[in-house]
């Protein structure tokens, strides 16, 4: 399967990426190659093979329900471009 311009537009929208119009053909070709590779994988017979969720054949370790993190807001907010009353400020988004 090869990707058309509409597919690329949708992927860009979902990934919040801006691709210039003259890049679309190149990106489309590369992504199509990847999809072709996946198609090839899909052709393998996997009947009776349980889906793998993780390459390591182990189970998740669980931690005790204990508060271990102190309040380090001051430190973390030094990185933020804008803060007010302890809140991180971002361009307004309402859906």
């Amino acid at each position, binding site marked *: 399967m090869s990707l058309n311009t509409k597919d690329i537009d*949708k992927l860009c*929208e*979902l990934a*919040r990426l801006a691709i210039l119009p003259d890049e679309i053909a190149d990106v489309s070709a590369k992504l199509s190659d990847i999809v072709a590779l996946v198609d090839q994988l899909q052709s393998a017979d996997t009947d009776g093979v349980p*889906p793998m*969720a*993780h390459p*390591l054949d*182990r*189970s*998740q*370790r*669980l*931690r*005790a*329900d*204990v*508060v*271990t*993190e102190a*309040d*380090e*807001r001051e430190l*973390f*907010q030094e990185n933020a471009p*804008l803060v*007010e*009353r*302890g*809140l*991180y*400020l*971002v*361009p*307004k*988004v*309402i*859906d």
Partner: protein
Amino acid sequence: MQFEAVIGLEIHTQLATESKIFSGAATRYGAEPNSQACLVDLGYPGVLPVLNREAVLMAIRFGLATHCRIAERSVFARKNYFYPDLPKGYQISQYELPIVHGGYIDVICDDEIKRIGITRAHLEEDAGKSLHEDFQGMSGIDLNRAGTPLLEIVSEPDMRSAAEAGAYMRTIHTLVRYLGISDGNMQEGSYRCDANVSIRPRGATELGTRTELKNLNSFRFVEKAIEIEIDRQIDIVEGGGKVVQETRLYDADRGETRSMRGKEEAEDYRYFPDPDLLPVSIDSALVEELRAALPELPADKRERFMSEYGLSAYDADILTASRPLADYYEDCVGHTQATAKLAANWVIGDLTAALNRAGLEIGESRIGASELGTLLDRIESGAISGKIAKEVFEAVWSGEGGVDEIIERRGLKQISDSASLEALVDEVIAANPAQVQQYRDGKTQVLGFFVGQVMKASQGRANPRQVNEILRAKLGG
């Protein structure tokens, strides 16, 4: 054409853990903004999530209480979308292999038991909170809630009316609080729900196109929003139109649901297993251990209250609505010779009213269960009347002392000795010759007047039954 509604609910209940689902930050409600958001919650590069054991145990307990299967192996997945209160750009949730699936719960609606299927319940992290006011065109982000553990409980589309959906939501709410896995506080957003609603001609088996109603955070809103949405869909279909599959927001002020345009385009979450987390294995020994430790569940307790204490379904419903209330009631019954019904009346009536007036929970009651039991004993033995008991109750409530102490100090003991009562009756008869004549002329309803006068003369302490007997005897003479 007659239509029927088909409704399924997705309930998000916040789990009552101390720390977050994937980090050691605190989950306390109402903390200073961003004071409980650590590097993991902020989505810093290089950090890794570590799963909270307690959240897993809570999910299993819920599954066991709803006849679900507990997955021996379950998997966390990334749900990808961009929003400023989701710093990683994905929410860690579960998709193909949820921790709990395939159960049911029985719900009582209009005195009928209805079985609602539970498709699945999965663990996930909550997002942060966006505040859109007061920041000069910017949004403020508080990430304290980011990473708070949620259990998302997805029902089968088994409900057929807004009332059934409300009853289901209430039943699950009671259950999660019984299990101690959530405080269920709806004002604080610890218990909220989305509803999938569609309609179809009555008798049809195919499902109609559904809409999803978002963020219904009170029982009343759920019922109201679903009713409005059902009516809206019927209007569309009867007008020859088609229901569009979309997400709609309930506006309580305007009493309408409206489309959240734009949401559909983006709704492609591209789930995939989270490589940061290994599959979770749950062994059957742990499941059995948790099963054995489950508390008595609300439905069982309700049944038992009806059979053991002879309570009506109505009384049993109210008394088993929360575990602390049910415990208080049983404690009280265990401390009194009075009937279980009298105890129920007092707990549901005067006690609940006093708690509501004071804005207190049952655990903060100013009259203990055994003290209330003593009060009931005094009523039962005839030492005080029901009316005087209310006065004693108020006095105990305001901290004036114990039941017997107050009865003694205020001289409230009921007058049951015949000599004193006869003297009171004689006085009243002597003072009201006209009414005596009326009675003797056959107008026997004036007896009530005499009883009232005697009660007044005794300051409410006369035993009304005895007063009646004595009056009849004397007036009849």
